[in-house]
């Protein structure tokens, strides 16, 4: 059964079982591979993307629940890695293996939309993704820098 999804500002007509997790529609039917699979049960956050402003763990959400909503993936954050969050992430050389980092960035993206000036406690509460390499120290610093860069951008 076909359905439409709005991903990174483009409409895609998907011919898939609408119950297919959103993650797999995006990775396998659309071909955007920046969003990662890791646990499949919504525990780790590697599959985090943004649906109507909310961070969503896409491995555990049927694709049809996103019909009519605006989906943003890591690829949609900027065409060239120039979004302030990505810039901040690069500044701290944050990723190690990098596998969780799309999800981390998308969690930070949702947090900063909601709280432009997050405290450490806000970060702890909102960024509950898993990083096995242990890059948390740099992720925290990068989120604070991204908040500053975004404030400057708005000025």
């Amino acid at each position, binding site marked *: 059964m076909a359905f439409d999804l709005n991903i990174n500002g483009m409409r895609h007509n998907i011919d898939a079982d609408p119950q297919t997790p959103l993650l797999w529609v995006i990775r396998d039917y659309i071909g955007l591979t920046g969003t990662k*699979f890791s646990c499949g049960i919504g525990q780790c956050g590697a599959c985090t993307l943004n649906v109507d402003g909310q961070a969503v763990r896409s491995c555990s959400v049927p694709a049809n629940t996103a019909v009519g909503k605006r989906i943003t993936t890591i690829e949609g954050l900027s065409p060239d890695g120039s979004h302030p969050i990505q810039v901040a*992430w690069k500044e701290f050389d944050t990723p190690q293996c990098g596998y969780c980092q799309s999800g981390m960035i998308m969690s930070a993206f949702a947090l900063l939309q909601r709280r432009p000036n997050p405290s450490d406690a806000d970060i702890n509460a909102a960024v509950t993704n898993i990083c096995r390499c*242990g890059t948390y120290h740099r992720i925290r610093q990068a989120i604070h820098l991204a908040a500053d860069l975004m404030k400057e951008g708005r000025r």
Partner: protein
Amino acid sequence: MSENTVSDVNRREFLAMAAAAQGAFILGFWVPPQANAQAKLQTGPRPVWYEDSPTPEVNAWIVIAPDDTVTIRIAQTELGQGVWTSNAMMVAEELQCDWNKVRPQYASANRDARERAPEWTLKVMGNGAADPKGGGEPGFGPRDPHGVNGIPDSLYRRMRTNAASSVKDGRYYLQLAGAEARERLLLAAAQQWNVQVSELTAKDSVITHAKSGRTTTYGQIAGRAAATPHPNPEKITIKSPDQWTLMGTERKNLDVPDKVAGRTVYGIDVRVPGMKWAAVKACPVYGGNVKSYNFDAVRQMPGVRSAMQFPIPDPALTRGRIFSGGVAVVADHWHQAKTALDRMPIEWDIPPERAAFNTANMRDALLAAFAKPGKVRVNQGNVDDAFARAAKVVEATYSTPYLPRARMEPGNATVLVTDNRVDIWVGDQSPQETRFSCSKITGIPEQNVYVNLCHLGGGFGRNGNGPQAEQAIMIANAHRGTPIHLLWTREEDFIGTTYRAMGMARLKAGLDGDGWPIALEVRTVMQEDGFGPESSFDVASRYYVPNYRFSNHTTKFHVPVGTRRGIGQAAHEFYRESFMSELAHAAGIDPYRYRRELISRTSLPYKDDMIRALDIAADMSGWGKPLPKGTARAIALEERGAETNRMATISAMVHTVSISREGKVRLERVDIAHETGFGLVNPLSVKKQLEGQIAWFYNDAMHQANTIKDGHIVENNFNTFRISHIDEYPPEINMRFFKTGHWLLGMGHDRSTSVQSAIGDAIFQITGKRFRDLPYGGHDLSWT
């Protein structure tokens, strides 16, 4: 063994695929039509595997394009440790090219095996680990046709990624590779201008003849250099650390821009034309097989193409480890394959003696093995006499559980088998072993096997020693002509990985009247195949004890064990450093002073460096200054190789830990003193590795354990196998580096092990309770 249906790769895709499979070129990354518009817009995914270059290479490591882009071939696999950058730095230092124009790419495993290393890389100059101008002591195993230990005279010398050795083993010949290319570029320019080479200088990819004011770029002269052999390459020398300009500076990792944009192609992201997906279930009890399965029950489900049974992968291909047989379902999309597999009835054939294992009876077996005679590894002085003289005897038994890597990217591999060629796309730390597996399973000669390396979503100890590749090859071999992408679920990844062996150590010390040890007996126990990679470490010899006996004891278990990050050293440093603190408390002596004194009594060549590490870490931490109630500091030494006068890595850490009355542990602060040896290639990478290993060993200390029930692993996803979040990461980390007089032995897997013993000692200091079984999170840590 297979029951497959012919897949219907469409004609255009098939032709492209067949052409690629027969020709010399590797299939490229394929983007589904849906994504074309977006991929163009966003520059798209960036594959990293080897590609033949249209420009002639200067040498096997270096290709310089007319636009001055320098492609540097990397023979180690990037799994987050930064080797993509540090290896490139070692080449570029000598090449003297513009760092901003460097693009790493994986070396070809096929060429590595087929071509012999240049003669000038084969002999290490210098005077071992103590010579700053020398090559150190790159370590290569004996020649092994399977590539398990590497092929010492293969083109890239060492095409595997393990034992924190990429920089240690690679530095000498990677610098040489850069130097050889630089010399030939200079030679080519000198010939073109008909001037003396000595009149030329090279900097940032530009060659200058100062006398005449002429310049050329590497890109312009590279073609000529490629055709200009060096007359005596064995005379080429490498720069010593005092001459480094790029090495030793903090360089951001070259793959980070792609990683933050979601463009990096990991194994899971590989797409090739006509590809089908495989989901698998292996028997959860190791050594088990499939008794029956009913494909008819799911055959009609959407996208489903075929199903097949596969046997236990040949242990000769998995370093003797016995995994399980299983079933695969192949479908158009992975989620279709997984959904069908989940609904397909499967009956397992489980050997009853393997199903009889559970954590409790395995623990009993380990304890029983202590009582049996072990293999005595060290026996100095007269231990029994000394115990008889001791004023006080302290004894402790510690345990560590089975632990997996649990890397974030689940196991996967994409394989295309045709009648005369195998291609595999995989994130793999030992591609020559995988090449051998491809050949053995398909019967296609090794020279026709191509391993296309991808970045790894975490490695933590040679992730290739799980059977993901072997399973994928077996499935693809039964679907010749169709590329098969196998992907494990997280649950399957917990079955397919190898574990660090569950182990125990019993330490007994006799103290004299002043509290100093005069006798020490150390016994360690684990399953017999856990020894070797898991032990290789002498528990106690860093601290002076005149009478010392160390023995290993074994039993037999069925869980496949392997080289997890830190190997046995991580557990052994937990045992050793925990016990040293216990002895200090028993003696009533400050644990920092106690360690310092016992190291100073040894005659170890690096004892001054160890003392320095302790002194610096203690100083940084404010050691001895009062802390609030419920907060404590603990110190520990970390070292590898310090008993030798060869390569070694020495560090010390002080961990400041708080525990709430309810028993909530918080690692508040870590102070790290770490040696640089003669120099760190990329200090930024070292800092990141130290930071990361704090989280790694914090998890080992607090949260992680795999238990066994009825022969299978119980915790098989992140809801039961806990990995810490950002809120548990220590808010303050301080690092201080100090220079020493030897080359480093690596630091990518065995640093920050002290988190384990330090949290244990802080728990003791704060709560009065001593826990010796990891993880601590399973104990009641409350206090009043």
